[in-house]
């Protein structure tokens, strides 16, 4: 997990800047941008580490990407790193949302803005799908992980069952099978 030689040390200021970049690029959700930055550009995490960190972030309560920021920040630079990563992720969108709120209260809904949003959301759907596809391509070539990925996709995406029930039922089984198959 150490940075490769030649890369700058991963300290709180760098974590703040990196997560600010992720946050400010994150139109339609930050996860695709987190993947792009942390796995593809900075190579701080492998595909599998990203999926594993995200899985833990989803298991814990709270916004997934904030939990990831806390875990990654802590791993590289302790409590200060965790706080720097979270701050980078939250501060800029907070200011943007305040400006958005003021504009929204003053101008309401412009048809032009609505049209732009519909085009942007079609792209956003593609970004989320692409991230899922890329993460899936890092999975082991074995039927077991693919079965669990297919089950959670079907239950949430196709059947639209409640998330808590699905994860509550699927997660223990997935962990047990993973633990049992290791021996």
């Amino acid at each position: 997990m150490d940075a490769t030689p030649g890369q700058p040390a991963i300290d709180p200021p760098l974590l703040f800047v990196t997560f600010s970049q992720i946050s400010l690029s994150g139109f339609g959700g930050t996860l695709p941008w987190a993947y792009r930055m942390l796995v593809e550009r900075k190579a701080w995490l492998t595909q599998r580490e990203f999926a594993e960190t995200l899985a833990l972030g989803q298991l814990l309560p709270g916004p997934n990407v904030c939990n990831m920021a806390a875990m990654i920040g802590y791993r590289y630079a302790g409590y200060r790193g965790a706080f720097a990563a979270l701050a980078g992720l939250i501060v800029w969108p907070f200011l943007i949302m305040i400006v958005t709120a003021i504009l929204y209260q003053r101008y309401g809904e412009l048809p032009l803005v609505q049209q732009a949003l519909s085009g942007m959301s079609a792209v956003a759907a593609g970004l989320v799908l692409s991230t899922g596809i890329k993460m899936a391509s890092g999975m082991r070539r074995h039927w077991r992980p693919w079965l669990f990925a297919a089950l959670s996709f079907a239950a949430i995406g196709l059947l639209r069952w409640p998330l808590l029930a699905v994860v509550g039922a699927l997660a223990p089984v997935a962990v047990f099978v993973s633990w049992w198959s290791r021996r």
Partner: protein
Amino acid sequence: MDRSDTWSMFLHFSLLSFMAIGGVSAVLPDMQRYVVEANHWMSAKQFADAYALGQAAPGPNMMFVTLVGYQVGGLIGAVATTVALTVPPFIFTLAITRFTANNADAPLAVAIRRGLAPVTIGLMLASGWVLLRSTDHDWRSLLLTLVTVAVVTQTRYSPLWLIALGAGLGIAGVV
């Protein structure tokens, strides 16, 4: 809306943050019930608009709670909802991380990470699928989504250009 309302909203959202397993969208229905139906601080339409704007603006999708907080209680309300949803889970996550960092290679910790990763990947694909179903109304926007998938999985171009393209096509009335 006075200070005690802001305080109760802060407490309610803090409580919800601990139930937001799998992401903030898990507690979205209850947030809506609290601010719209129970307290009438904003209309259902305003809540839906806040959510849509939160999706479009840069940053984590959960930042729509900042907009909800601002609508309800101004700047203090915005700080209240944002802090309520991020800080308690942050502290909890750090506590768990500190524990697991010392036991990262324990067989159970490895099994938890390995076992849950595929479930998460399935959820990610499901989110994309649900977004696709809720945003795409015809073949042109579906095509735009598929082109996005092709470009993002096959090339290293910044997706920001695709977002800009989507906005442009939307304004031009193409999608």
